[in-house]
C-alpha cells in the first residue's frame, strides 16, 4: 500500500532526468564526448566538490551548537533565538550574496569602519571564502532545524544513564547526544551539500566558478541547451555519488526510545550563558541582521530620494498561497517515502528515497526548463497553471521534507505501531493515527523548510507559474536585475517578515508539549 504513493513520487523525479538525457543526446555522442574530454569540466567539478564540502562542514559546526543551545539549555530567550536562527534560510542567496559583498567586500561597509583603525585591506572575499561564507550563512538552518527537531525527540534516559555511570557532561554530549543526532545531522548536511551544488545566486555574485554557474552561463549566453544538459547530468552523477557516500554513513543504529515520551530537563548554562549568547548573537547578526539592515538602508535611502512605496499585497498573497500549497503537498508526499525508508529498508526503498534527492540538486533553471518541455509538449492543459508550479516545487524541495520526516520517524518505536496493529488497526490506520502524529514534529519541520525555501524560489516561479502570477521573490528579482535596490528592499523585507510567521508558530507549538 505504501509502495504506491512512494513509487508515484519517485516516478515524478524521473521527469527532469529524462529531459536531460534527451537534450544531452540531441546532437549525438560527439558533443557529450567533447564536454567530458574538456579538462576545465573537471576543474569545475573539483571546485564544486570543494565548495560543497566546506559549506557542509561549516554549517554543521555552526548549527549543532545553536540547535543544542536553543533546544536543551536555559539560554535566555531561547525560543526567540530559535526563530531568529532559522530565518536566514529565507534570505534569497542573490540578496544575501549582494549584502555580503557590500558589507565585507573591498571598500565595503566594514572596511570603511575599520579604516581609521589602520586596516588597509580586508582579506579577499571573492572566490571560495566568500561563496562558502554566503552559502553557510544562508543554508546552515537546514542542519539547525533538523537537528533541533531531533534533539527535542531524544529520550533523556540515555543521557541520564551515561551521567549516572560516571560520564562527564562533555563526554555525554559527544558520545551519547551527538551520536543520537547522527541521522539528523546527516540529513541536514545532505541538504546543505546539495544546495551548495545547485545554488547560483551566491556563486555568481561572489565569483566562484562552480558547476551551477557554468550551467547558467551556458543558458544565458549560448542558447545552446545541449552542453548545459550534459553538465547538469554530470551534476546528477555527482549527486548520486554524494548520496552513496551518505548512505554509508547512516549505519544501522536504532534511535527510538523504549519508554513513553518524557520532557528533558534543560541544562543550566551558568557562566557559559554569556559566550553562548555571544555566539548566537554573532551568527544571527551576520546571517539575518546584516541583510535586513542593508535592505532597510536601501529602502530608507530610496524613500528619502522620493521613491514611492508600492502595494505588495498581491505578490505577498501569491507567495504565501503557493508556498503553503507546496509545503502541504510536499510534507504529505514525503511521508510514504520516509516511512518506506525507515520501516521497510531494502534496496528498493533506498532507491526510491534517493531518487527524491535528484530534483533538489539540479539548479532551478534546469528543473524549470525540463518541466517546460514536458508541460508544453505532453501536458499542455496543465502547462503554466498553479498545479504545475506546485508540482515543480514538490519535485525541487521534496528531500527537505523527506530528510526531516525520516529523522523523526527513526525516533518512533515500531513497538508502538505493533501494539496498534495488535489492537486491530489496519496498516493505513496505524500510519495515519499512530505513526504520522508521533512523527509530526519532523513532518512539520519538513513542511516549514519547504515553505521557507519556496517563498524565495525563482526560476521555476518565473517560467512555470500562471502568466501574470507574481510573488515577492519575483518582485525582488525584477527590481535587482535593473539595479532598483530601493524597490527590491520592500518586497525582500516583507518576504523575510512573512516567513517568520510559520517559524514562530512552529516554535510556539513546542510549548504545548
Amino acid at each position: 500500500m505504501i509502495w504506491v504513493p512512494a513509487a508515484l513520487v519517485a516516478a515524478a523525479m524521473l521527469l527532469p532526468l529524462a529531459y536531460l538525457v534527451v537534450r544531452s543526446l540531441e546532437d549525438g555522442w560527439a558533443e557529450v564526448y567533447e564536454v567530458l574530454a574538456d579538462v576545465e569540466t573537471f576543474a569545475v567539478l573539483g571546485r564544486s566538490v570543494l565548495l560543497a564540502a566546506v559549506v557542509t562542514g561549516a554549517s554543521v559546526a555552526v548549527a549543532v551548537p545553536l540547535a543544542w543551545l536553543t533546544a536543551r539549555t536555559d539560554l535566555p530567550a531561547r525560543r526567540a533565538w530559535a526563530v531568529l536562527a532559522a530565518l536566514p534560510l529565507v534570505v534569497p542567496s542573490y540578496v544575501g550574496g549582494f549584502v555580503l559583498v557590500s558589507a565585507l567586500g573591498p571598500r565595503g561597509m566594514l572596511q570603511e569602519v575599520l579604516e581609521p583603525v589602520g586596516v588597509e585591506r580586508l582579506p579577499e572575499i571573492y572566490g571560495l571564502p566568500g561563496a562558502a561564507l554566503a552559502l553557510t550563512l544562508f543554508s546552515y538552518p537546514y542542519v539547525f532545524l533538523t537537528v533541533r527537531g531531533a534533539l527535542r525527540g531524544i529520550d533523556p534516559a540515555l543521557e541520564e544513564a551515561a551521567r549516572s555511570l560516571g560520564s562527564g557532561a562533555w563526554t555525554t554530549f559527544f558520545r551519547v547526544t551527538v551520536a543520537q543526532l547522527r541521522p539528523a545531522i546527516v540529513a541536514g548536511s545532505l541538504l546543505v551539500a546539495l544546495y551548495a551544488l545547485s545554488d547560483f545566486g551566491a556563486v555568481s555574485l561572489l565569483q566562484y566558478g562552480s558547476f551551477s554557474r557554468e550551467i547558467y552561463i551556458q543558458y544565458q549566453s549560448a542558447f545552446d541547451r545541449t552542453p548545459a544538459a550534459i553538465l547538469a547530468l554530470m551534476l546528477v552523477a555527482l549527486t548520486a555519488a554524494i548520496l552513496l557516500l551518505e548512505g554509508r554513513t547512516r549505519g544501522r543504529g536504532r534511535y527510538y526510545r523504549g519508554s513513553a515520551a518524557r520532557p528533558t530537563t534543560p541544562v543550566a548554562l551558568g557562566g557559559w550563558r554569556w559566550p553562548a549568547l555571544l555566539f548566537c548573537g554573532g551568527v544571527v547578526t551576520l546571517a539575518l541582521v546584516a541583510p535586513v539592515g542593508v535592505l532597510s538602508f536601501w529602502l530608507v535611502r530610496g524613500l528619502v530620494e522620493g521613491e514611492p512605496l508600492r502595494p505588495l499585497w498581491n505578490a505577498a498573497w501569491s507567495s504565501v498561497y503557493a508556498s503553503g500549497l507546496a509545503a502541504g503537498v510536499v510534507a504529505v508526499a514525503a511521508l510514504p517515502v520516509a516511512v518506506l525508508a525507515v520501516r521497510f529498508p531494502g534496496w528498493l526503498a533506498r532507491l526510491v528515497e534517493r531518487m527524491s534527492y535528484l530534483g533538489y540538486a539540479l539548479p532551478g533553471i534546469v528543473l524549470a526548463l525540463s518541466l517546460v518541455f514536458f508541460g508544453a509538449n505532453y501536458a499542455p492543459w496543465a502547462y503554466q497553471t498553479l498545479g504545475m508550479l506546485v508540482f515543480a516545487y514538490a519535485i525541487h524541495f521534496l528531500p527537505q521534507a523527506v530528510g526531516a520526516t525520516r529523522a523523526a520517524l527513526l525516533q518512533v518505536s515500531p513497538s508502538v505501531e505493533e501494539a496498534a496493529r495488535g489492537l486491530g488497526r489496519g496498516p493505513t490506520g496505524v500510519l495515519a493515527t499512530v505513526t504520522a502524529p508521533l512523527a509530526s514534529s519532523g513532518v512539520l519541520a519538513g513542511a516549514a523548510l519547504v515553505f521557507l525555501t519556496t517563498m524565495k524560489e525563482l526560476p521555476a516561479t518565473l517560467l512555470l507559474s500562471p502568466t501574470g502570477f507574481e510573488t515577492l521573490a519575483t518582485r525582488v528579482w525584477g527590481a535587482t536585475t535593473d539595479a532598483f535596490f530601493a524597490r527590491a528592499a520592500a518586497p525582500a523585507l516583507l518576504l523575510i517578515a512573512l516567513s517568520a510567521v510559520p517559524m514562530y508558530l512552529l516554535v510556539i507549538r513546542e510549548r504545548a508539549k
Partner: protein
Amino acid sequence: MSRRPPQKVQSALRFLGRFWIPIALTALLMAACGQPPSGQDAGETTEETTEETTTGETTAQEALTPGEGALVIYSGRSQELVEPLFEQFEDESGIEVQVRYGDTAELAATILEEGENSPADLFFAQDPGALGALTDEGRLRPLPQETLDRVPEHFRSDDGVWVGTSGRARVVAYNTDELSESDLPDSIFGFTDPEWEGKIGWAPTNGSFQAFVTALRVLEGEDVAREWLEGIQANDPFVYPDNATALEGVATGEVEVAFVNHYYLYQALEEQGEDFPARNYYLKNGDPGALVLAAGAGILDTAQNPEAAQSFLDFALSEEAQRYFADETYEYPLVEGVEPAEGVVALSKIQSPRVDLSNLDDLQGTLELLQETGVL
C-alpha cells in the same frame, strides 16, 4: 506565559494526522494532473482549466489560449521598467495583456523548449542576441515593412523578423573620486595598458557585454578581439554578475572603471542622489566600446494573437512609448523625432561604430572565444 494558541494548531494537526493518506493521494494526483489543488480560488491569474477530452491529445491550441483575445507577452525586460507601458497599451487598445517576466535568455530557452505549443505571442527581449537565437530556429514571423521602417536600419533584423524598440549605449563608467574624463583613453584598447591593472570591472555573462564582444569580432576581426580579451584578462579585472553590480563596484571604489550600459547610471542617480560618485564616459572615434545596442521585440511563428501582437509593436514604436523609454528608462528612443531624456548624451553625439545589430548573432562564436580566453 500564554499557552493557548497551540491548541488550534494541535487540533489541526490531529485532523491532518487522521486524514493524511486520503489527502496525500488526492493532492498528489491533483499535482500530477496539474489541476490546481484546492480549486480555482487561486484567484485572478489562474486560468480556467478546460475540460479534458478523452486522450488529452493536442486540444492544446485552444486550451492554452488564456482567455479570448488576450495578448501573451514574454518579457525579458523587467517589470519595474516596462509594466507601465503594458498598462498604457491595455488602456488605449482595449486588448488584455498577460505578461511573463523573466531573464531574456531563459525566456528564449523556454520558447524553444515549448516548441509549437508556446503560449507566447510576442517576445520582448533585452538584447538582439536572444532575438537572433529565435530567428535562427525560425521562431519569429516576418513584420510589415512599415513597422521595420520606423527605426534606422541597423537597429532591426535583416530578415525583417524583429525590430529594435529602444537603444542602449555601451559606456565606461568611472569613479569620479579617483578619475576625471581626461584620465580615460579614447579607445577600449587603451584599457589593456598595465596601468589599469586591478582597476577594471566587467560582467562577461551579461548579454550586452557579449554583444559588444561580438561587435569587436565583426569590426576588428577574431585576432584583435582575442588580443583585447587577453589584454584585459592580464589586468586582472573584477568579474561582476551584471551591469548593475558593476556600476555599484565603481561607485564604492572597488574598481575605478567598468564596461556597462549607459542607463544604470541615471537610475542610480535617481535612487542615490547627485553625489553618487560615478559617471559615464563615451569612447571616441567609432570605437567598438561605444557600441549602441537595442532592446527589441518579435512576433512568434506560433502566435495565436498576431494582430494584437502587431498592435503592441506599433504602440511600442509610437511617439508616446518612445517618450516613455526616453524619460522613464533613460534609454534612447529609436524613432525619429523623439529626443532622449535631459542629461542623457544625445545619440548623435556618440561616436559609435557602424555595425548592423543583426550581424551580431554569432553568440556561439563569442562564447567560445570567451571560454578559450578564460574570461568565462
